[in-house]
């Protein structure tokens, strides 16, 4: 029974998240408190859920790209482009709908561009998306004319700061998107195709799987998710900053994917795992604040925590620990 539970793919990500929450609760007794005010739910946990939403969305897109043997390191730049487009559009036209459509369309185009480079031009994914990672910031600056665009249009605020059913809208959005995506992958053969492409692209193609169009779409989808994250982030801070929106988000997204148990070599993937991975990363950030770590050692502390988390998740490491533990009582043998 215990062995069965231990073998569940989500056991270690869930355990890690639970440990982090316990650590927080120990350092800050009010951490787990939830309060109901003005028809909304408030609390540290809700805050984590809300702030993890953009990362979870980007990481969901990244999961599928990685599952099909790809990688997209341009998502941070695409977040900036989408944020800039949305901000510019809403400032110029005052239409929320138009701003959303424009931001998502531009992000989708960015993703498809990446996909074209990989699928048609046959470039290595990391190099293909590196182009947009570097150039994308420039594109975003062009859109904002090098300024930080401040958004004064109140309805735009709802995306990043609004509440739905008492919960933060962004979190609800992320959950809905991930649940829908999961349903799509399990009720259609798409999940099977993605795994087949990730494990053996050539065999998948010979078996009749349309590997190229599918891969192209996955990059497009990954861009779209970055666009959604860009809208949330720009709405959250009521501005679009071409230089700083979504910086290093690509690395956090890859980390979230890895923490969730998706193989970076392609094939095996878990959307639920990725969502938990995003929560782990956001909880880590919260931990740093609740432990009162001084800002100057913030990054070092975060790195150390991530290191511990990764060790905990490594099957090899756990096996060697177990080996030590079972050997130590009887050193004679």
């Amino acid at each position, binding site marked *: 029974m215990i062995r069965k539970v231990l073998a569940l793919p989500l056991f270690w990500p869930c355990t890690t998240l639970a440990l982090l929450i316990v650590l927080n609760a120990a350092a800050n007794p009010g951490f787990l408190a939830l309060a109901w005010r003005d028809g909304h739910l408030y609390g540290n946990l809700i805050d984590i859920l809300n702030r993890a939403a953009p990362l979870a969305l980007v990481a969901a897109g990244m999961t599928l790209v990685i599952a099909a043997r790809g990688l997209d390191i341009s998502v941070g730049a695409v977040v900036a482009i989408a944020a800039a487009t949305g901000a510019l559009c809403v400032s110029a036209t005052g239409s929320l709908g138009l701003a959303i459509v424009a931001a998502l369309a531009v992000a989708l185009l960015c993703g498809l561009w990446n996909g074209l480079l990989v699928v048609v031009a046959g470039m290595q994914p990391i190099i293909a998306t590196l182009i947009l990672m570097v150039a994308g910031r420039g594109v975003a600056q062009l859109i904002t004319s090098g300024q930080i665009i401040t958004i004064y249009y109140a309805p735009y605020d709802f995306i990043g700061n609004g509440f739905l059913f008492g919960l933060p809208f962004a979190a609800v959005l992320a959950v809905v998107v991930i649940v829908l995506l999961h349903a799509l992958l399990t*009720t259609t*053969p*798409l999940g099977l195709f993605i*795994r*087949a492409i990730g494990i*053996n692209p050539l065999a998948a193609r010979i*078996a009749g*799987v349309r590997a190229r169009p*599918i891969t192209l779409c996955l990059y497009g989808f990954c861009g779209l998710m970055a666009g959604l994250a860009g809208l949330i982030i720009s709405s959250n801070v009521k501005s679009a900053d071409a230089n700083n929106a979504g910086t290093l988000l690509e690395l956090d997204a890859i980390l979230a994917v890895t923490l969730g148990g998706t193989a970076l070599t392609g094939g095996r993937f878990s959307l639920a795992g990725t969502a938990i991975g995003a929560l782990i990363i956001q909880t880590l950030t919260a931990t740093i604040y609740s432990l009162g770590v001084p800002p100057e050692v913030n990054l070092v502390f975060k790195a150390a925590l991530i290191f511990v988390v990764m060790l905990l998740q490594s099957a090899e490491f756990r096996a060697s620990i177990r080996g030590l533990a079972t050997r130590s009582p009887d050193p004679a043998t």
Partner: protein
Amino acid sequence: MLLQARGIVHAYAGKRALDGVDFTLRAGEVHALMGQNGAGKSTLIKVLTGAAPLQAGQISLAGRSIRPTSTQDAQRLGISTVYQEVNLCGNLSVAENIFAGRQPLRRWTRGGGIDWRGLNQRARTLLAGLDVEVDVRRELASLPVAVQQMVAIARAIDISARVLVLDEPTSSLDSDEVEKLFSAMKRLRDSGMAILFVTHFLDQVYAVSDRITVLRNGRLVGEYPATALDHAALVAAMVGRNSSREAAIANVTPGADTRDQPPVLSTRNLARRGSVSSVNLEIRPGEILGLAGLLGSGRTEVARLLFGLDRADAGEIRVSGQPVSLGDPAQAIAHHLAFCPEERKTEGIVEDLSIRDNIVLTLQARMGLWRKLKASERIELTDRLARLLDIRAASLDVPIGELSGGNQQKCLIARALATNPRLLILDEPTRGIDVAGKQEIMNQLTQLAAQGMALLFISAEVEELLRVATRIVVMRDRRQAGSLPGGSTEEQVYALIAAPAEAVQAGAP
């Protein structure tokens, strides 16, 4: 007695792959290990070479009890293995591959680092000992598989030279290369090494082995001197039935005469630059068209064109009389063609997916992105095909990579059959599969043809082609050299494979 194993037991998921097997290997002998797919050959080798743990039984090497925990461990003890698929680094040079991880170093007084001259010199000497002439500084991947195999052997014997295990070393070699390998094996044997040799080619067993051990269903059938066991007796020992079945199978009736039916597929002057030129084929329902030719004659290239893996740049392909454009396997599948590729591992199976997922993959792909087989349909279909093709597995939900080669091949045929194709193209479907497995597969193919399916059967083994094909087309130098009716003799086919077309067609009946 150099290597001795007693009462070896090994079980996968509760199923015994080896059940109390004894095995003895003497110094200075070549010992063939024979058995059908799933008889336990691979498992025994894995246990002996440390790739699988010893679950029960004893192994002793030169009288000392051993328990290898990994292949490296076995190598330290003196047991080296060369696997069927060469697992060296293609991007390193020949010499680097031989000495990877144990390069000779220069003294620090001479600048330190790797002693390249010494390294290359030693590699040259070593390969010369195996009668291989090659520039040891060349990148390994640029050399023929046969040479790569010799490099793997050179590496193995240089590391430790008491027991050498060769797991199907000849399956990708042509006959000259096999000769070379055998003379190297004999030389090593004469120098006192013990060689354990696994192959599916019966002739090769007799060409080189001193002794034969036969396994069946995870049990030892017996150990025989090669001179005391003739062909028929060997097959009988492997199959476990008497030779009446042999005879019955040898007389598989070629498919019916279907000359009056319209062809499922026909090509006119089909060509692709650098691939093949001017291919004219006609395949009718119920017909098994054999495609013969030497390695590199264009056999596989024809299959690639017909299945849309390569795009033809001249000529036309008609499916059921309609001209079609095939630029992707998905298009070929939509036209009810199916294909079992030659390279099972790299082009066929999707290793980490379950057997069921592998079987339904093509059918699902043809059903499009949105429609998924119902769980019950999926199970019913895969169960039925597994039964039909006699796929042997502990469960159909285990990854396909865990199956033996013959069973993997059956899964690929099942994948093709799941789409109910009108034409099934098989490229070397029996390669690397034992005698009984081959016969099973060929029986299946004949039955499919009898039910009206058209088959294109590509094989390097002429005897096999003659047994099932209604007609044989021969490829030579990337052209169609001619065709022969079913029931031709091996000599006629060989003549066409080797000689100019005109000369033979004149002599053909």
